[in-house]
């Protein structure tokens, strides 16, 4: 019993310790530029999740509005992730020809097209 409890406490403890270690590593090892971008990604995620939850709650009318909002969130999240990958100095080896400025310009351009379509669809 105590072994199971201990292992359970240990398991709980191990999950907690993993999370704590992750947060410490993240806080120290990540450049602030990436942290800013991560905050943006979290914001977009929450917005998308809230929209989805609302749709589940009150129904899908009007469906096109829900879709456009949700796709805007999802698309923005994906483009943000792409930007983060391209800016991350640890990945510099894989993106030889693409400078961070270029990545940012691509990010802006893709977002423009995405939101053009989203605004068209939102009705």
């Amino acid at each position: 019993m105590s072994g199971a409890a201990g292992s359970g406490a240990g398991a709980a403890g191990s999950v907690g310790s993993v999370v704590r270690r992750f947060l410490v590593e993240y806080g120290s090892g990540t450049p602030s530029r990436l942290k800013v971008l991560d905050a943006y990604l979290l914001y977009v995620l929450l917005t998308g999740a809230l929209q989805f939850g609302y749709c589940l709650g009150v129904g899908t009318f009007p469906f096109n509005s829900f879709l456009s909002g949700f796709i805007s969130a999802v698309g923005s999240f994906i483009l943000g992730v792409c930007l983060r990958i391209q800016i991350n100095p640890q990945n510099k080896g894989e993106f030889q020809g693409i400078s961070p400025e270029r990545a940012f310009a691509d990010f802006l351009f893709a977002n423009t097209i995405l939101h053009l379509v989203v605004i068209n669809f939102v009705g």
Partner: protein
Amino acid sequence: MAAPGPRLRLAAAISLLLLLAGAQALAPSHRLTSRDLARLRAALERPFADVQAAYYSIVGLDSLGVRVADEKAACNFVKSHVDSSSVDSLFYAAQSIRVLSGCEVTISNETRELLLAAVSEDSSITQIFHAVGALSSFGLPLASQEALSALTARLSKEENVLATIQALETASYLSQQADLSGIVEEIEDLVARLDDLGGVYLQFEEGIETTALFVAAAYKLSDHVGTEPAMKEDQIIQLMNAIFSKKNFETLSEAFSVACAAGSLSRNHYHLPVIIVPDGPAAVSHHQPVLRLQVTDVMSQPLTQASVKLDYAKSASSKATVLQQTPFTLSGDVFELNFMNVKPASGYYDFSISVDGDKRFIANKVELKVKVSTEVGITNVDLSTVDKDQSIAPKTTRVAYPAKAKGSFTADSHQNFALSFQLIDVNSGAELIPHQTFVRLHNQKTGQEVVFVAEPDSKNVYKFELDTSERKTEFDSASGTYTLYLIIGDATLENPILWNVADVVIKFPEEDAPSTVQSKNLFVPKPEIQHLFREPEKRPPTVVSNTFTALILSPLLLLLILWIKIGANISNFSFAPSTIVFHLGHAAMLGLMYVYWTQLNMFQTLKYLAILGGVTFLAGNRMLAQKAVKRTH
């Protein structure tokens, strides 16, 4: 091998039918009845306005065989109104004077010179016609050969129909020694120019007047020259139909032309159209056994010299010949035949009648449909109630027409009502099958009526049976007393019958009886249909959606807090123009998105986006390049 055979026979039959249809002569559809003639006369007997009007009236009436009322006054009018310097006026005067009896006039030398000078190649055909006509009617000598050459020369220049017709008339005044065959050939050419309207009418596009003048001129010339006009029988009949279809005449010249045509068609040497019409309806019966025919020419003058013969009379239904080769007898102005002598059965008969006696007769064979009527009698009328189980013998009552059966009959769930009768021809005793044999049941209380058809069986005995369980839908299950009528009718019956035979009490099973008997009135307003508009979709209450809208902005708040916590700032913001332009352009693009959402369409947005995007791109490019340079240093 069966397939080609019947098809070949069918094709042969159709071609034979077509041949026969073509071979059968057209029957005249229009003629001048005595009323039409009176109208024509009235149109012509107007007081004279001038010499031309006098000519139309006098000569027109003469064509109809009627003399002018006051010939002396007419003669004086013409003599006083003639204009000796005009060839036309002289022509009208000359023709009128020739027709009027006891009218003499002397012609001065100048007038004669004038007329002779008009007969030349330089005058129009009308002028030549009038000059030649005047010279001939005044009895003055005329050089036929010169006139003929002048006419032929003019004809080649004036090709219209009216000129050619006038040339025909002119030629009829010229001496027969001159070679008029060239002019006679024009008749054929003119016939070719006639328009066929539906196979019934043949006329010139210039109108009825021209057509009538053509007919008169063609026959005048043909009689003069002695050759038959080149017109087929069908064409003559079609011309007749066209000319005599006009019953009201607007102008005097129109009336004149129709009168001339009528006169020529009833008096020429070659063709005499015959009109055969029944006198009254073409029906015979026991009371009226004689079929009367009016056989006349186009002016409704009876052709009492003709011999009228019935070629054959065939029954329309059985095609059996009942009579053939029987002559009609003349009685006054009408030809008669007593058809009931052969005791024909009632029905329709096809008569083929031919009129002979003169070689000139055309359209002298007609087909006529004659109806033979009779009277019907009802015999052996038996009313009975038949038990459904066949356990009790049927009770039969005999009724005689026109009496009504005493007592009433019942039809309910265990007995049927039956009626049987026979229809015979009263005169011949033969059995009849008329078109209409109905049994009508009329509900006395509600006014409902139901009509059934009584059918004959193989022995021609009519039977009708009323089974309440089978027929309850027709009656709407309304029980009660119904009056029974028998209705017999046919086109060939002179005495249609509506006979109240008996009263029938009909009882339907109780459970089917409707609570109230409604008369089926079709013309009351029907229940109104309410239109269901499309329901709007269910939406959450405004509170909920407003709350959510506020809620959705909370992650944005979180974002700002996180950014501040991380330490994001704009301290590196350089106020280079490209940076400012870039940021402004970007902001403008976001603003454009909002405007697109509220107002614009895609095309306008793309246009603005292209401009803004281009500017922003250039500025951004510059800005980012500067940033990259700064970074690498």
